[in-house]
C-alpha cells in the first residue's frame, strides 16, 4: 500500500503525462493521416516529379529508425539554428514518421479499387480529382481502416520513446517515479495497465467507426 500512497502524490503529473501521450498520439495520427493522403495521391496519381518526390519521402522515412528521426529534429536542427521544444520536436517527428506508414496502408486500399470504376467515373464526366475524392478514397479508406487502427495502437506505445528527448509523457513520469521510489515493479505494471486500457479503448473506437462505415461487399476481414 506504500505504492499507492506514493502514487497519489504523483497523480497530477501522471495525468499530465498521460495527456501529453494522448496529445502526441492523436496529433500524429490525425495530421499524419492528412499528410499520408497527400503522399499516397502523389505516389499514385502525381506527375513524374511528385511521384518521385513522394516515393522518396516514404522510402527515407520507412528506411530509418524513428529514434534517428526524432534525435535529428530535436538535437540536430539546433545545428542550423532551429531550436524546438521537446513537445514540438516530438510532434513533428511522429507526424512525419506516421504519415509514411499510413501512406503505405492507404496505398494498399487505393490499389484495391478497380481501374474500371475510375473509368466509369470519368465516363459520367467527373474529372480526375473528383474521381479520386468521390470514388477511390471512400473505398480505399474503408479497406485501410484495420491497418490504420493498428497504426494508432502502435503510436500510443511508440510515443514513449519521446522520453529520450525529455518530453514528460506518461513513460517519462513513470521512470521519474521509479528512480525516486525504487518501486520499479509496481509502477511499470501500473502504467502497463494504463497503456493497455487506452489501447483497448482505441481498438473499440475504431471497431465502431468501421461498423458505422460498413457497406455490404466491403469485407475487410481478410486484411485483419
Amino acid at each position, binding site marked *: 500500500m506504500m505504492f499507492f500512497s506514493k502514487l497519489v502524490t504523483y497523480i497530477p503529473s501522471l495525468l499530465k503525462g498521460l495527456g501529453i501521450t494522448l496529445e502526441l498520439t492523436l496529433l500524429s495520427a490525425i495530421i499524419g493521416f492528412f499528410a499520408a493522403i497527400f503522399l499516397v495521391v502523389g505516389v499514385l496519381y502525381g506527375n513524374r516529379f511528385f511521384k518521385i518526390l513522394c516515393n522518396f519521402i516514404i522510402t527515407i522515412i520507412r528506411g530509418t529508425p524513428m529514434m534517428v528521426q526524432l534525435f535529428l529534429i530535436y538535437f540536430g536542427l539546433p545545428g542550423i539554428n532551429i531550436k524546438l521544444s521537446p513537445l514540438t520536436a516530438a510532434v513533428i517527428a511522429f507526424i512525419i514518421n506516421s504519415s509514411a506508414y499510413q501512406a503505405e496502408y492507404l496505398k494498399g486500399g487505393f490499389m484495391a479499387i478497380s481501374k474500371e*470504376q475510375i473509368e466509369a467515373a470519368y*465516363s*459520367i*464526366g*467527373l474529372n480526375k480529382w473528383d474521381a479520386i475524392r468521390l*470514388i477511390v478514397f471512400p473505398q480505399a479508406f474503408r479497406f485501410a481502416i484495420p491497418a490504420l487502427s493498428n497504426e494508432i495502437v502502435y503510436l500510443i506505445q511508440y510515443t514513449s520513446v519521446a522520453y529520450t528527448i525529455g518530453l514528460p509523457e506518461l513513460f517519462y513520469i513513470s521512470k521519474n517515479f521509479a528512480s525516486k521510489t525504487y518501486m520499479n515493479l509496481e509502477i511499470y505494471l501500473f502504467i502497463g495497465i494504463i497503456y493497455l486500457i487506452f489501447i483497448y479503448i482505441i481498438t473499440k473506437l475504431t471497431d465502431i467507426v468501421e461498423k458505422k462505415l460498413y457497406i455490404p*461487399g466491403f469485407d475487410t476481414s481478410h486484411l485483419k
Partner: protein
Amino acid sequence: MEENLLIIENIEKAFGSQKVLDGVSFKLNKGDVKVIVGPSGTGKSTLLRCINLLNPPDKGRIYLQNTEITQLPHSKIPSIRQKIGMVFQHFALFNHLSAIDNVALGLIKVKKMNKTDAYEKAMFELKRVGLDQHKDKYPAQLSGGQKQRVGIARALAMDPLLILFDEPTSALDPELIGEVLQVMQNLAKEGMTMICVTHEMGFAKSVANEVIFMEKGKIVEQGPPLKLFTEATHPRTREFLSKISELYGESEKK
C-alpha cells in the same frame, strides 16, 4: 458538314509498337444503333474508349455534333464525356454507393443538380430499367443482371447523346442476359443512339440498323444485319458470323 451525330474519321491507335486501330471510319446519325463484332483483341473496346476519350486516338478525328473532340485541351474532356454514356463489361459500379447513389452521383457532382431533383431523376432512370425496388441496395447485393441495369441507368441519367456498350452481357450468367438485352432493346426502340460491342446476334437482328465486322484494327465489312448475315461479301465475315451464331445461338432463342 452534314448532320451526323458522330463522325469517326480514320482513327488510329497504337499501344507501344502494337497497332490496335488502323484507320477506322464510320458515321452515326441520331437514333442509330450500331453493333460491332469481331474476334478478341481486334480493337473493339479500344474503339469505344477512343470515342469517349478514355484512350484518345493517336491519329484521325472524331466529331460529336460537328465539333471536333479529338483536339480538345484536357480540361474540356470531362464535359464531352458526360455527353457520351458508357456501359462496361464488368459493370464498374461504384461499390461504396447504393444503386440510386450510383445513378445520382453524376447529376449532383457533374450536372450540379440539387439533390431533390437529382434523386427524382435517378429514381426515374432506375424505374426505366426496372430496378426502382432495389434502389437502396449496394452493388454487392445485386445480381449481375441487376448491376448491369444500374450501369445503364447511370449512363442514362446524364441524358447522353449516345451510349457506348462494351460487351454488356458477356460477363453475365446466361439466364441473366435476357433482362439486360430487354432494357437495351427498349432503349433502341425509344430512339437512343447506341454503339454496342456485342455478340448477341438476336439483339443485332432485332434493333441494329448496321452491323460492323472488325478484324485486326480495321473494319472488314459493314451493313444492315440481315444483309450481313445472309450475303456477306467477305469470307472472313461469313466465317465469323456463323461461328458466333453457333456459340451464342442459345441465348438468342430466349
